[in-house]
């Protein structure tokens, strides 16, 4: 291999300008030109990924954006081309917050913000706590680590269906413990309908999301040199000071990515509310993803649904950009 590679460029150069590949054609396969091999090969290797990215993400996204400008109802789904262009009408319906559709979207947006704040915050808190606790070497550490990762390894649907069973009012485990055994409530509570539904949603989401935070932070903690802690403890720093002054600042780059990823996943989460609540979520747990699903698939109004999706995409892009701008600026500042 090495010999071929080192000799090849010369051969190539000598062949340039003559009829290429004529002499050795039978013996050797047609050769990739030098220029392409040097400059183009990386691009060639990227090509499948780019093509698949185009097919799976970008083209559907563009189609979605185009759909958002059309009145794509059931009258036109068998022949998209015939759907009338409506300009910005779908958008004006979606953002007309005085009218019921816009109002419902705004409500759903607020619910999603509250849900995301608590779900991401708690997932991070649990993750960081568990990761720090499991840094110490003790018997059973490996076992605990494995157990903590179980929610992350379980198939989402199976796990959430199990939660839905546990949250049932009459036969569910949650009420059995809270009401029947501990007697904390006067009456068995509803978790899957009504006002408590947001708590059920946050609990399941945190349960599902924190092992990822734990995993990432555990890996990040391995990279903090032990000497720092030793030096700190010699200087008289207690455990809290060590966490505050050494651990958290060292975790900062990981946290930056982790919180962003958790935010995007949680804000967009469709599986959890869909499996818990079905096609129509209670008003208190009407997350934006399920709201958009209902606005397009259940009511067959794909134009308005697409417009809402585009708005959601824009919102997430803006949040991500602002977040990255501030966090990276802060990091540069701290370095300087």
């Amino acid at each position, binding site marked *: *291999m090495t010999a*071929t*590679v080192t000799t*090849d460029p010369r051969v190539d150069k000598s062949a340039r300008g003559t009829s290429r590949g004529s002499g050795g054609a039978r013996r050797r*396969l047609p*050769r*990739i030109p030098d220029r392409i*091999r040097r400059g183009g*090969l990386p691009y*060639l*290797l990227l*090509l*499948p990924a780019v*093509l*698949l990215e185009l*097919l799976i993400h970008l083209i559907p996204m563009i189609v979605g954006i185009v759909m958002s400008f059309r009145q794509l*109802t*059931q*009258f036109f*789904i*068998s*022949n*998209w081309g015939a759907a009338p262009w409506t300009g910005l009408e779908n958008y004006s*319906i979606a953002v007309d917050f005085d*009218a*019921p*559709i816009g109002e*419902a979207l705004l409500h759903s947006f607020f619910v999603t913000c509250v849900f995301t704040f608590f779900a991401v915050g708690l997932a991070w808190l649990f993750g960081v706590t568990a990761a720090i606790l499991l840094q110490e070497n003790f018997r059973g550490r490996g076992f605990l680590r494995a157990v903590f990762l179980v929610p992350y390894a379980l198939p989402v649907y199976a796990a959430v269906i199990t939660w839905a069973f546990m949250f*049932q*009012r*009459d036969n569910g485990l949650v009420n059995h413990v809270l009401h029947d055994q501990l007697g904390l409530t006067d009456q*068995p509570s*509803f978790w*899957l*309908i*009504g*006002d408590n539904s947001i708590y059920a949603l946050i609990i399941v989401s945190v349960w599902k999301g924190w092992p990822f935070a734990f995993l990432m932070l555990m890996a990040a903690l391995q990279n903090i040199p032990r000497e720092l802690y030793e030096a700190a403890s010699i200087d008289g720093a207690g455990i809290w000071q060590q966490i505050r002054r050494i651990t958290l600042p060292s975790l900062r780059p990981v946290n930056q990515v982790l919180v962003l990823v958790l935010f995007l996943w949680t804000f967009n989460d469709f599986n959890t509310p869909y499996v818990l609540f*079905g*096609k*129509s979520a*209670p*008003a208190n747990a009407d997350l934006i993803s399920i709201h958009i699903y*209902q606005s397009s*698939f*259940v*009511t*067959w*109004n794909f134009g*308005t649904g697409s417009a809402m999706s585009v708005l959601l995409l824009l919102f997430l892009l803006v949040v991500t950009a602002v977040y990255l701008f501030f966090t990276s600026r802060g990091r540069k500042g701290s370095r300087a």
Partner: protein
Amino acid sequence: MRHLRAAAAITLAISVAAGVTGCGGGTSSDGGSNESPKTLTYWASNQGPSIEADKKILTPELKKFEKETGIKVKLEVVPWADLLNRILAATTSGQGPDVLNIGNTWSASLQATGALLPWDDKNFEAIGGRDRFIDSAVASAGKEGEPPAAVPLYSLSYALYYNKKMFADAGITTPPATWEQLVKDGKKLSKDGKWALGAEGSNLSNNIHQTFVLGQQHEADFFDAEGKADFTSDGAVAAVKQYVDFMAKDKIVAPGNAEYAQNQSLTDFAKGKTAMVLWQAAATTFAAQGMKPEDWGVAPVPVPAGAPGAGKQTNSMVAGINMAVFKNTKNIDGAKEFVKFMTSDEEQKILCKTYGSIPPVKAAQEDPAFAAPELKVLRDTLATSAAPLPQVPNESQFETAVGTAVKELFADAAAGKPVTTESVKARLEKAQQTMQQ
């Protein structure tokens, strides 16, 4: 170098393959043809206890069809939760089956897409004529005044199922024929952790089926003559309130039923926790849950006291499954042939007996098997007092919007919040406003 070149060649090949498969497909035509006369694809709905059971039931019949016509039918049984989305995807892409089952309440919505073969006189003639079918079943296959978008395949209606022992223990001798009686009996039955009536408060479709019938009894149609949503009429409000009041005011439905959406009310019934359910063809489920046929009785769904009275007043929707053909099929003659086979007298008897449904084909109904007590009630209801759900293009939106309103009202009732005419009207008002015309 050789490795490098091989790697480059492989990536190029993969890229090209991905590109080709990505851009391929999408040959949709409007007319339907007979390009592949020897095969058909059929999406069946899940009618039996499981998908596997359906395959076992249908495969011998399909073999029979293949023997008769030489056409091989590729069967796929699609679960209800996926069926509508699958149909929408097939409609959008033009890559669907040739023949498929649809829930009859979707008929007008799917008709509006224009993707299904219209069953005009000529097409009906090809399967033996429109007269072979019961009128109410054909009426549930599309918008009035237009050729139906599908052909009735299995029919069902609602009935009142009651637990004989619980009735006897409470000293009730006959099942209630009016709502007034049902509430009165219900109060006797609802005690000691047991309840009179089951409901599926979080099941949007079921909420619609029940409130639609009550609406008919209150002279509300939910849609006006032009097909515009009319959810807030006095009749509609009264109907929804009456249904939710079984829990909120009359207290004959257990509060827990507000979150039921997966037929838990049937389990409660089979366990003797509730004395009555309003359901369609529940016999097989009861048997599967360990109930004996003599444990339960069946009666027509109650009606309001006074005129026009039982037997004339609407007391059920026309429930059922229709069979449709995608217009762009490549085997149009074979598809019609298959519909003809499935709706033939003989096949109707075989399939409906197995599934516990009523044949929408008049001649097949004459079979003595359909005169057994449960099926007789269902059959008579279908023949005399069942009405199809509104056959309007936005029926699907209606189910979601009003079904959700009823679900939320049940949640209020279960949490002990008051359910008043105003609160019902406000929810329905909101539902109506979300309907885009």
